[in-house]
């Protein structure tokens, strides 16, 4: 297979785009497309301060790499979750992020959950109702809380995450299967800032997971290949597998599922419920916005001790 741009040997064939590219042109294509998505969805500008949430995985480190190459003011934030033993999952992922930032002379905020709150994510999960059902639920809640706290504290204009199209399509698939209207309405490549919440953006939301892995490998980015032990057998991975069965039989199916959803939303298919606009209150413990009168969901985790 030949590269469409230069005719040399292709390293990747993106069937959904009917596009095969060589290493050189693929590594140019990904940043160029990212820039296009950033502008299309009005995510941020070169004059704004961007905070990239990095986990040590292929998507977030690739995103940081792309933003640096595109000349954005992008700092990183790594959240130490305390998963695995000494030298285990969290330690390895932290090392990946620290090495990445050092090699590129970029600023990395490191926030260690155990140091700040006296407990690791697995320990919090063990003793809370939310965590007993799903460890990932406690992890997600904590990450959202910490990322917003750091973005607000250091005055970042926008918080960006490395969610790719497979992530977005899997979430949409799950929410559609269960008709979770509130979640469906909120899913977007960009969420504007609201009182107490930073603006959020997902610049990789239109790239397949395979493309991001290819970008990381071809760019020589060292990322953690090992899976988080808590994600093994997760619903999100199951949904991704199902979507890939559809994709295999019908190239472009995942992309169309997501893009047609965005189009339908733009055309007003999903009306916002009036209560979605309700005024948020302020958490009495941490000061972050909350819909509850009293403590926010995150602070309530520590009420259950």
């Amino acid at each position: 297979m030949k590269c469409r741009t230069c005719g040399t040997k292709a390293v990747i064939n993106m069937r959904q785009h009917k596009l095969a590219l060589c290493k050189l042109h693929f590594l140019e294509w990904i940043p160029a497309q990212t820039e296009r998505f950033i502008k299309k969805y009005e995510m941020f500008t070169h004059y704004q301060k961007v905070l990239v949430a990095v986990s040590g995985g292929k998507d977030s480190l690739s995103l940081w790499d792309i933003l640096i190459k595109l000349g954005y003011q992008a700092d990183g934030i790594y959240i130490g979750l305390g998963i695995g033993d000494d030298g285990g999952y969290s330690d390895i992922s932290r090392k990946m992020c620290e090495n990445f930032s050092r090699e590129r002379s970029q600023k990395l905020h490191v926030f260690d959950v155990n140091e700040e709150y006296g407990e690791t994510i697995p320990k919090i999960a063990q003793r809370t109702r939310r965590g007993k059902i799903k460890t990932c639920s406690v992890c997600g809640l904590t990450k959202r809380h910490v990322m917003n706290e750091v973005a607000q504290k250091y005055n970042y204009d926008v918080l960006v995450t490395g969610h790719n199209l497979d992530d977005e399509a899997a979430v949409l698939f799950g929410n559609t299967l269960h008709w979770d209207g509130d979640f469906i309405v909120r899913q977007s490549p960009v969420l504007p800032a609201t009182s107490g919440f930073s603006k959020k953006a997902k610049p990789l939301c239109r790239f397949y997971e395979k493309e991001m892995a290819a970008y990381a490998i071809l760019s020589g980015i060292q990322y953690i290949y090992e899976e988080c032990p808590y994600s093994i057998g997760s619903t999100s991975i199951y949904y991704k597998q199902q979507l890939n069965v559809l994709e295999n039989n019908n190239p472009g199916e995942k992309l169309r599922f997501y893009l047609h959803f965005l189009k339908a939303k733009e055309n007003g298919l999903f009306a916002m419920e009036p209560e979605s606009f309700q005024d948020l209150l302020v958490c009495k413990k941490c000061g972050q916005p909350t819909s509850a009168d009293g403590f926010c969901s995150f602070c309530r985790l520590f009420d259950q001790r």
Partner: protein
Amino acid sequence: MVTLIIRGKKYEIRSGMTLLSSLKKLNILPETVLATRNGEMITEDEVLGDGERIDLIEVISGG
């Protein structure tokens, strides 16, 4: 024979097939892996030769 390795697990398949056919034979969805030969990424139409080692990198992660 061709050796395909995924997460340390080895599979032997006959040579002369394309990467795509080999993945199908192993019930691996092409969308879920990247393949490298001698450290170089290859596309699914590549024919795999006798004695070659192909490393498959899983691309799907949770979260």
